């Protein structure tokens, strides 16, 4: 039983790394900027699709592809914020939600048209051969997913805590007016934050192609899961989103392993209901003292 449990744990961490990356991006867009972003799953899949274009079609090196995808999707996120979100800033939740729904319908179907309807794998330089540690099986690709997840998370932490931009971001989202009054270009911070969140989802999309397959239909479930994780972590709590992602991955895996795979996706939503009723500030934050 224990060997299986350990395998479930590792499985959960792999899924959890994806959730964490998705949620980290969404915590910026939804948690900090308060945009109910229904296109988040599409940003995720788009990362994979763009990677496919460079890596498989143009034959660009896989690691270089990651850099290109991050750069392009960052620019795409910035453009999205500038064109679609900025004009609606300060309006009712519904307006931005609807614009992102429009964007998601547009992106998903445009991807189906350009990328094709057939699922595709990425030419990643990973051996398919399993690595066996004791009773646990893992592959290079899955290990890579965990590592990239960890790196992205650490990099985000450094960015937020140590850099000038990170400080401007924190200032903007804690007290927007004060940030403007010390000279922060608040609009630019919003745009950069949206771009960063988009890029983060796209990295997860590249990993998706490297470890599993890329297919636009993955987007909807991914969006929903990302929302779930952001709530678990506590809306504006970025480290919380990471912890929430890993936790959801592990809990789902254990639930699927020992209880029922059919009901696996229910857990996340049940947790959301439970948390919002009893700990609306998330699982990991202390009760805010305001």
């Amino acid at each position, binding site marked *: 039983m224990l060997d299986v449990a350990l395998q479930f744990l590792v499985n959960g961490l792999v899924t959890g790394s994806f959730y964490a990356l998705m949620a980290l991006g969404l915590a910026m867009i939804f948690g900090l900027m308060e945009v109910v972003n229904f296109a988040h799953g599409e940003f995720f899949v788009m990362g994979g699709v763009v990677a496919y274009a460079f890596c498989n079609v143009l034959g660009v090196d896989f690691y270089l592809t990651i850099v290109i995808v991050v750069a392009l999707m960052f620019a795409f996120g910035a453009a999205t914020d500038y064109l679609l979100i900025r004009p609606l800033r300060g309006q009712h939740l519904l307006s931005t939600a609807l614009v992102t729904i*429009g964007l998601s319908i*547009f992106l998903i179907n445009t991807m189906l048209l350009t990328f094709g309807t057939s699922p595709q794998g990425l030419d990643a330089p990973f051996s398919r051969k399993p690595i066996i540690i004791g009773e646990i099986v893992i592959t290079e690709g899955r290990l890579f997913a965990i590592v990239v997840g960890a790196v992205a998370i650490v990099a985000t932490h450094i960015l937020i805590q140590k850099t000038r931009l990170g400080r401007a971001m924190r200032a903007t989202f804690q007290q927007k007016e004060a940030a403007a009054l010390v000279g922060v270009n608040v609009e630019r911070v919003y745009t950069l934050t949206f771009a960063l969140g988009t890029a983060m989802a796209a990295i997860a999309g590249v990993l998706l192609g490297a470890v599993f397959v890329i297919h636009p239909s993955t987007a909807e479930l991914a969006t929903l899961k990302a929302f779930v994780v952001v709530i678990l972590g506590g809306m504006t709590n970025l480290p919380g989103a990471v912890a929430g992602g890993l936790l959801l991955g592990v809990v789902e895996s254990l639930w699927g392993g020992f209880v029922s795979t059919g009901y696996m996706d229910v857990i996340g939503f049940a947790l959301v209901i439970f948390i*919002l009723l009893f700990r609306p500030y998330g699982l990991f934050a202390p009760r805010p003292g305001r």
Partner: protein
Amino acid sequence: MSSQRLPLLALLAAAIALPLVFRGEYFMHLMIMVLFYTVLASSLNIVTGYIGQLSLGHAAFFGIGCYAAAMLTLDAGWSVWTAMIIAGLAAAVAGFVIGYITLRLDGHYFVLITLAFAEVLRLVVINWEEVTRGPLGFPNIPRPSIVLGGEVMVDFSSKTHFYYVALVLVVITLWAKHRFVYSAMGRASVAIRENPRLAQSVGIDPFYYSMVAFVLGAFFAGLSGWFYAHYISYVGPDVYGFGFMVTMLIMIAVGGRGTIVGPVIGAAIITIVVEELRFAREIRLSLFGLLLMLSILFFPRGLVSVPDLLRRRGWWPGAGKTGTA
């Protein structure tokens, strides 16, 4: 605000006369879908438009109405008309329970918790095969019929029958909504939407009014579910899905939330646009997404605000002042 009444009555008269003028079953089908979506979108508008809460769980009430209708008529053998009442009530009860739990949360949390409720319900419906028949759902749901003295008076063999049933539902929905919006209660809820703190300070309990709106919205969503079940005659778990949720959101946003006519316009425009875009084949939905984004960007208050926008530029007759919506 009563300025909306006259054109609404004119619209109603036109709607009653419509089947006499245009015959064509496909056209009638689209009109029935427009009416059906009008009820559905209006029911969401009571919640999202008037108390300003973005509920993503509304499809669940629609789904409950669908399943209540299907299960009662197929499994329990009840009459279609009894099922109608129960479908509405079942959804209202669910609305009461979910509303009671969720309405104390605000903004973003409310969005997510309602979404979570709908998803849990959808997954239960898929997995609990013994009761819900799982993913395959309920086919062959009977059509309604009106029986008087043992004789079938109306057998709903033609679309015109459904059309008038849908029209009656629309009228009831809009009438109830009108009563709610222009009651003291409705004015209070508008006050809440505009300024929750102020509303509280003048002694309005926002929770109570939000509850009434939420339950009322759920009830009409359930009714529209009943109609859908008997008209389409097939119900599967997709009725709980995100597809219907997105459709009604788009309708109230494109038409104009927080107005009586907004969802009517939204339901008509979206149903027809989606249909007219068929010529675009594969790029149909891409185009639709693009149109949706443009519509929200240029008419954030919905198409009902178009005359106002035009009037401000002097392109529409009338005084150059801003209207109330």
